[in-house]
């Protein structure tokens, strides 16, 4: 016997729902593609509150953890830190005098860095952020603009502001995978192009005879040079006239709590 196949209404309905959902997803994606600031401007105020709350909760647990540390551990740590401070103070004396002399020379030549520096709290950092970015608690209200340079540990240049909202900004690290930045090696004055490798790591190619060695300082060439990285490894191929240099930022981007932003005057 031959039976006529009944129309499968459940399947038809399911396909209709799928088509509607796919259309909705395409619309969501198109909004992000054509208006990349739209979603962050909605979600940052909402998420910002959550991030601040999270920081206070985590901070409370961290402080509670510190109070139950053993006394002997604290004494040892105190002694070690005191010795370290003394050693650093001596280095700082020399550094301060050199910095003053440098500023005086630049002022005499009519060259000085422009803009003020403001402190910002890091709300989100890697590994929560999968891209090499952080979100800070300063925005247009504080005078930030896209392209402002961002520093950590006082003088280590780590990235630049890419997107600015009312009270939040997104900062992209120079170590973003594939990102290229012009740098110079302090000891040999060799210039090169650094390529970001993620997580505060970089690689660069320089002539094999440039004399770059492990521990050399990498700087960002500017009127006021800033520390960009410390050379970790130099790989020289005897058959090649260039060496591969691997270096990393002095600031641990997974551990940054505050950054400084140089805003335009």
């Amino acid at each position, binding site marked *: 016997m031959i039976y006529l196949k009944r129309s499968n209404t459940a399947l038809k309905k399911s396909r209709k729902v*799928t088509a509607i*959902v*796919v259309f909705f*997803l395409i619309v*969501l*994606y198109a909004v*992000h*593609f054509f208006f*990349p600031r*739209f*979603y*962050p401007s909605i*979600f*940052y105020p909402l*998420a910002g509150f*959550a*991030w601040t709350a*999270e920081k206070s909760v985590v901070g409370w647990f961290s402080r509670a953890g510190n109070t139950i540390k053993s006394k002997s551990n604290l004494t040892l740590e105190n002694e070690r830190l005191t010795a370290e401070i003394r050693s650093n103070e001596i280095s700082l004396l020399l550094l301060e005098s050199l910095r003053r002399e440098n500023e005086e020379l630049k002022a005499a030549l009519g060259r000085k860095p422009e803009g003020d520096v403001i402190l910002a709290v890091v709300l*989100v950092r*890697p*590994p*929560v*952020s*999968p*891209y090499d*970015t952080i*979100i800070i608690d300063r925005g247009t209200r504080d005078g930030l603009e896209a392209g402002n340079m961002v520093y950590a540990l006082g003088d280590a240049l780590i990235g630049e502001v*890419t*997107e600015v909202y009312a009270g939040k900004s*997104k900062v*992209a690290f120079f170590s*973003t*995978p*594939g*990102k290229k930045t012009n740098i110079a090696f302090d000891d040999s004055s060799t210039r090169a192009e650094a390529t970001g490798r993620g997580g505060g790591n970089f690689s660069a190619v320089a002539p094999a005879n440039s004399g770059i060695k492990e521990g050399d300082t990498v700087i960002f060439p500017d009127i006021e040079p800033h520390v960009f990285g410390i050379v970790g490894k130099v790989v020289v191929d005897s058959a090649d006239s260039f060496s591969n240099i691997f270096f990393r930022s002095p600031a641990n981007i997974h551990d940054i709590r505050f950054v400084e932003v140089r805003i335009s005057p």
Partner: protein
Amino acid sequence: MRIAGNIGIAVSILYLPWWFSVIFIIGVCFSVPKFYEAVVYGILIDALYGTKFGLYGFSYVFTGVFIIIFLVLSVIRRRLSW
């Protein structure tokens, strides 16, 4: 299960390492039928944390990855029975 998964993923995107969110989304895609929200979370991660430069010049890494995860797991889920 769907609602719990959505809450968990939203929290993990805001507070937990990115790889935790990816694992969580894979898990939820496996257990919830037609978990289209995975793509929405991809767009959300790209919007919240991504930049124009993205990774190696591609800005929509997570949208792309979650679309692939969703499609692959939908096929696997259909072919498995439990």
